[in-house]
């Protein structure tokens, strides 16, 4: 098991190196480039050449890349030029990431709690009105764009009725900061109004964000349970006269959850990589919102680090899922 994890971590290093290369060359192949962005359109070729020399951009790409990797290894991630001018790019990521984690975890929790029981029930009542209604519902969940759902929720519950906050992460209550996770901070410092405010700010964006994971997890659960109930071992369990509860939990769900686990991992991974649309609609200060503003401002240092870290997080989450998979499925563990 340990060897498996070490091997996967080594793979992660490989993935990161390849991705950083792709990213580096991709960004530099974009028209314009940092010099144009910094000096503007009216700069003379001479000015451009001098700045390029200062920045080392006149060197061949592979030498630039080696220098870039060297800087990264020394912990120099470059400075922001637009999102938060002058700030270290990594600091911006670290400041934004906890907000995205909070949002993603709440959204995925909502999605799982709703999708797995519904998926199971829909499968067991295959072909019933409930089954068809939930399928249509999940189709709507997939088909309706997230920003539209987000806008509707925001309009009804925040703007029109004013039940929930319109934007941001927390009201300005002068809360104590410990971990950058606002709900956790509020609970730890017993500033419960802070935790409540953070939670309130999460409700609408997390519901909007949960629609797609909900629909995906629901569908996979339903399909997987449908598969498993016709398996021979479920018939064996019935032939043993076991109670419905044991058949459901031990024989159906434990097997049906294997593909669902994979899909949950993929969903968490992509949510953590930045819920761009939802965060933008609710002006929520997470990775997705930072990604948009760094792209808009051509803030290459920040953009580079955000994309790279998103990829690392995605791979890490999937590693965790694979380890969990081995815990649940003995065929993976004892091969």
């Amino acid at each position, binding site marked *: 098991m340990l060897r498996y994890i070490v091997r996967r971590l080594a793979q992660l290093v490989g993935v990161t190196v390849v991705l950083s290369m792709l990213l580096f060359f991709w960004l530099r192949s974009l028209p314009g480039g940092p010099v144009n962005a910094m000096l503007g359109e009216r700069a003379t070729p001479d000015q451009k050449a001098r700045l390029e020399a200062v920045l080392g951009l006149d060197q061949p790409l592979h030498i630039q890349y080696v220098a870039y990797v060297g800087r990264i290894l020394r912990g120099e991630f470059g400075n922001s030029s637009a999102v938060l001018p002058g700030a270290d790019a990594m600091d911006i990521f670290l400041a934004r990431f906890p907000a995205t984690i909070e949002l993603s975890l709440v959204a995925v929790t909502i999605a799982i709690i709703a999708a797995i029981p519904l998926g199971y029930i829909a499968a067991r009542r295959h072909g019933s009105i409930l089954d068809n209604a939930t399928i249509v519902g999940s189709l709507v969940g997939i088909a309706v764009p997230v920003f539209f759902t987000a806008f509707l929720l925001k309009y009804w519950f925040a703007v029109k009725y004013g039940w929930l906050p319109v934007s941001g992460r927390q009201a300005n209550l002068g809360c104590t900061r410990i971990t950058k996770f606002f709900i956790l901070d509020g609970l730890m410092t017993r500033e419960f109004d802070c935790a409540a405010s953070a939670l309130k700010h999460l409700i609408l964006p997390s519901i909007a964000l949960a629609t797609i994971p909900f629909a995906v997890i629901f569908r996979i659960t339903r399909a997987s349970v449908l598969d498993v109930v016709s398996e021979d071992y479920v018939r064996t369990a019935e032939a043993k006269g076991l109670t419905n509860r044991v058949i459901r939990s031990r024989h159906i769900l434990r097997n049906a959850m294997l593909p669902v686990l994979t899909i949950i991992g993929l969903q968490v991974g992509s949510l953590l990589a930045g819920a761009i649309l939802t965060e933008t609609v609710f002006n929520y200060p997470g990775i997705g919102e930072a990604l948009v503003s760094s792209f808009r401002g051509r803030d290459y240092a920040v953009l580079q680090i955000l994309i790279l870290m998103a990829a690392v997080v995605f791979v890490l989450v999937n590693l965790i899922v694979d380890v969990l998979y081995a815990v649940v499925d003995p*065929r993976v563990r*004892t091969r």
Partner: protein
Amino acid sequence: MTTTTTERRAAVRETAPLLSVRDLTVTFQRHGEEPFRAVDGVSFDVRPGETVGLVGESGCGKSVTSLAIMRLLPKRGNKVTGTVNFEGTDLLSLSDAKMRDRRGRDIAMVFQDPLSSLNPVVPLGVQVAEVLERHRGMSRKAAMPVAAELLKRVGIPDPVRRLRDYPHQLSGGMRQRALIAIAVACAPRLLIADEPTTALDVTIQAQILALLKELVEDTGTALIMITHDLGVVAGLCDEVNVLYGGRIVERGDRHPLFRDPRHPYTNGLLASIPRLDAAGERLTPIPGSVADNLPWDHACAFAPRCSQPIEICTQVTPQLEVADGRALRCHNPVTSGWSGPSAGQTEGDVAR
């Protein structure tokens, strides 16, 4: 030897049946399709300690019969009529909860494919112990040593260590032994084995059959053996029911049936088994497949494939008629008998 067997059979015949299936009919009804009778008025008895074979080729209704008895057919898309009387109770009219209490305790089942019939993500020990927990009210802790004992009894070496193993870590034969251990865990009075050796190697088949025979003889459990393999029947069954097209076409005690098959279908089944003592002789397969069947309503379903059909076979439904301990559904039975070796030899040569 034949006399003692006959005496024993006579004694068994006197006892009241443990299971009495009467007029069992299973109709599959798919939306927008013609209803299809997979089992069509099947009746037979199983007495305590008796081993009864249900024999026939794929699609003859033998597995559906067993699933109907266990009430394991899907809830929708089929209709089951008739009665399945088990020790005075009609299983078909029991509530779901009452039936659930009996399954695994009074009647247990061994399935065909041991790998797919075991849960891949649950340790073997739990899969055996859960039956004891359910029907014997044991705790997990108390059930585990009993589970190990059961695994040992069905011939699984190192049973205590095996409790923690998962099905994929066992060989095919071991898996089938484990399934048998699960089935006999609560000492059921009736065991239904649905093609228990079909998915196994020939050498393992013989071991599993020997194990079943031993368990049945030791515990006095009655056994319904469902198979397409007459070799299995020859080594194990007291009485044999030959099914064709959802109906019983011939029934008799093993020795007379093998020595003197009356139905052309039974005769054909026996003639298509390779025999060691008839080297050089060609095998005689039954031509066609079940797809050629006529509906039983106005004919004999087997007529298109029969070796000796007469005119009436395609006009009148043959009835199951009983004479001399033999039930037969045929207008033109085989008269000469099968010119094979004596029953004693048949058993040895055909059994694999």
